[in-house]
């Protein structure tokens, strides 16, 4: 790798159950302005812009082109979009900076789940021949995975409740989070998952700025250097996979260099409590690692932005000097189908 690239700024909305008084661009724009303000950059200074979103969430065709209005994309800027979580938009921007084509990149993503029924919307990403016609919703698929993990002896319901409680307690320090403090574990939504094991449904957005080399040092007192980043995917058949493990996460972590030295912090994109159990095992995280100090996706899960939030939160801890080496993880698809791992470091203090 010939160029050092860092996250130099991060901003997010308050994540809320609804935002029906705002269009997507109206929700997104303050976040874009906030992240630019942190660096003093203007749109015209940005070398590459990449976003992640899904039109299915709010049912609005080409919503990402309307969102571009908030960037100031006319006259045309160098820009791209992924129908993925913003973590994958960040991956594309990182590769763009690696090529030397740009020195700075704006990455953002947003999701408005409130206009639709997100459990049903997410069925449309499944195998259209064998799975989608059965409409298995996102909670049902996570529950199948949770039961497999329980059957394997890797966790039990009290342990899952403890993950939920720890996440929402940690989120009390995160003013952007949607679910904070004491949240009842509740009834079964799809057994064995209770409402407390599931993420809140909500709307929100996130943005980060990447910069290369000296530019990063100019823009940020303590840049969060991306030491490695990789993403891998499981076989698409749910019944082909071992749902109790995440070999794609482990492989991505290995390729990103996560196992070369211990990390002090991990921001894991685990929308369901049971998925944190799988990820901790796959990433070999022991109790010395601070997991999801932000509260994680169990505290705020704006779909398409929740993975980018993990990278942003990990980077922000490095910016603030609260972490020296952090792992950030993002996931997409049912039962941790696809996984991205980034390793971030701050300069020695």
């Amino acid at each position, binding site marked *: 790798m010939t160029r050092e690239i860092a996250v130099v700024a991060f901003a997010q909305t308050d994540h809320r159950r609804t935002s029906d008084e705002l269009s997507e661009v109206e929700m997104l724009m303050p976040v874009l302005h906030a992240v630019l303000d942190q660096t003093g950059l203007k749109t015209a200074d940005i070398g590459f812009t990449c976003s992640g979103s899904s039109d299915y969430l709010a049912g609005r065709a080409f919503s990402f082109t309307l969102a571009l209005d908030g960037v100031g994309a006319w006259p045309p800027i160098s820009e791209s979009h992924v129908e993925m979580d913003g973590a994958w938009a960040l991956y594309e921007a990182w590769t763009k900076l690696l090529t030397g084509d740009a020195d700075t990149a704006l990455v953002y993503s947003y999701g408005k789940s409130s206009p639709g029924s997100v459990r049903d919307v997410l069925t449309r990403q499944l195998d259209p021949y064998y799975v989608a016609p059965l409409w298995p919703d996102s909670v049902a698929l996570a529950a199948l995975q949770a039961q497999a993990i329980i059957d394997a002896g890797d966790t039990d319901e009290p342990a899952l409740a403890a993950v939920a409680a720890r996440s929402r307690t940690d989120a009390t320090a995160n003013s952007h989070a949607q679910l904070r403090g004491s949240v009842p574990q509740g009834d079964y939504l*799809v057994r064995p998952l209770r409402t407390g094991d599931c993420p809140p449904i909500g709307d929100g957005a996130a943005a980060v700025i990447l910069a290369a080399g000296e530019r990063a040092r100019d823009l940020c007192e303590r840049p969060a250097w991306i030491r490695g980043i990789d993403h891998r995917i499981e076989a698409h058949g749910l019944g*082909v996979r071992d749902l109790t493990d995440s070999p794609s996460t482990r492989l991505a972590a290995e390729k990103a260099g996560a196992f070369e030295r211990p990390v002090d912090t991990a921001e894991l994109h685990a929308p369901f409590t049971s998925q944190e159990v799988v990820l901790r095992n796959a990433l070999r995280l022991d109790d010395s690692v601070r997991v999801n100090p932000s509260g994680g996706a169990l505290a705020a899960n704006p779909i398409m932005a929740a993975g980018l939030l993990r990278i942003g939160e990990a980077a922000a801890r490095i910016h603030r000097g609260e972490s020296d080496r952090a792992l950030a993880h993002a996931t997409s698809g049912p039962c941790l189908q696809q996984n991205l791992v980034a390793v971030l470091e701050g300069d020695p203090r």
Partner: protein
Amino acid sequence: MPEVLKAPLAVEFPFTRSLGPVQSAFLTGLRERVVLGVKTIDGRTLVPPVEYDPVTADEIRDLVEVAATGTVTTWAWNHEPRRGQPLDTPFAWVLVRLDGADTALLHALDAPGPDAVHTGMRVRVRWAEDRTGAITDIACFEPYDGEPEQPAGHSGEFADAVTGIVAAARLDYTYSPGRAQSAYIHALSDRRMVGERCPSCRKVYVPPRGACPTCGVATSEQVEVGPRGTVTTFCIVNIKARNLDIEVPYVYAHIALDGADLALHARIGGIPYDQVRMGLRVEPVWTDGARFPDHYRPTGEPDTEYDTYKELL
């Protein structure tokens, strides 16, 4: 702030999908109450079968019949079935490894309650009465305490194999247009056209979307524009649109309303289609009860000079 506007929005598509040879054999098999798997390079039997080996990505075509009985590998109790799911009474989602298969199939299990379900329990396929060659030809699984059924060794060759499926999909939303467009729509109900001005470049956008695409900042200052405007460019529509009761040919035009820095588009009426021209002055025509102009018609004013609207084509 005016009240938040909301309207129901249904997105509905019948997706027509073609099948590969393995998928075709599997779904045709279900129609004939035969369950087929496919052998991978390393000798495992995948059910449901796929076209390519999940490990090596090789094309795989070696079909093998498996039993309609099997074992639950994991389950989840669904006490509130949702639209489109296999059963409308409480059921268990299950992954089932059919006898003879090495992988599991997702479906529903009809059971009296969660206490009647456990990993490792034996189940069998309950076939749908009407079968068309789709995954829903399996109505669900049901508990089964008999011997494993013996597959008959079907070759996977069928007369009149299905080659495609039609997958209906409907998602329901509650649409809200957001602050700027809500204000625009509220004003329209008073037959006024209200755009928004960019605080930076001073351009007025109609309809407003809340942001200036050049400056990337929020628009907020409301500016009433029109009602008259100028045709900046147009096309002649010769193909009748479905569900649209307008005789062809007709003219659809970009119209720069007086005071606006962005052209909106609308139909031109009240003039023969072949007499519409760039620079034509027009005004909106409202019909009773409508929330937006039905079309625009000539005002009779002299045409506008090209140089004054050339940026608004």
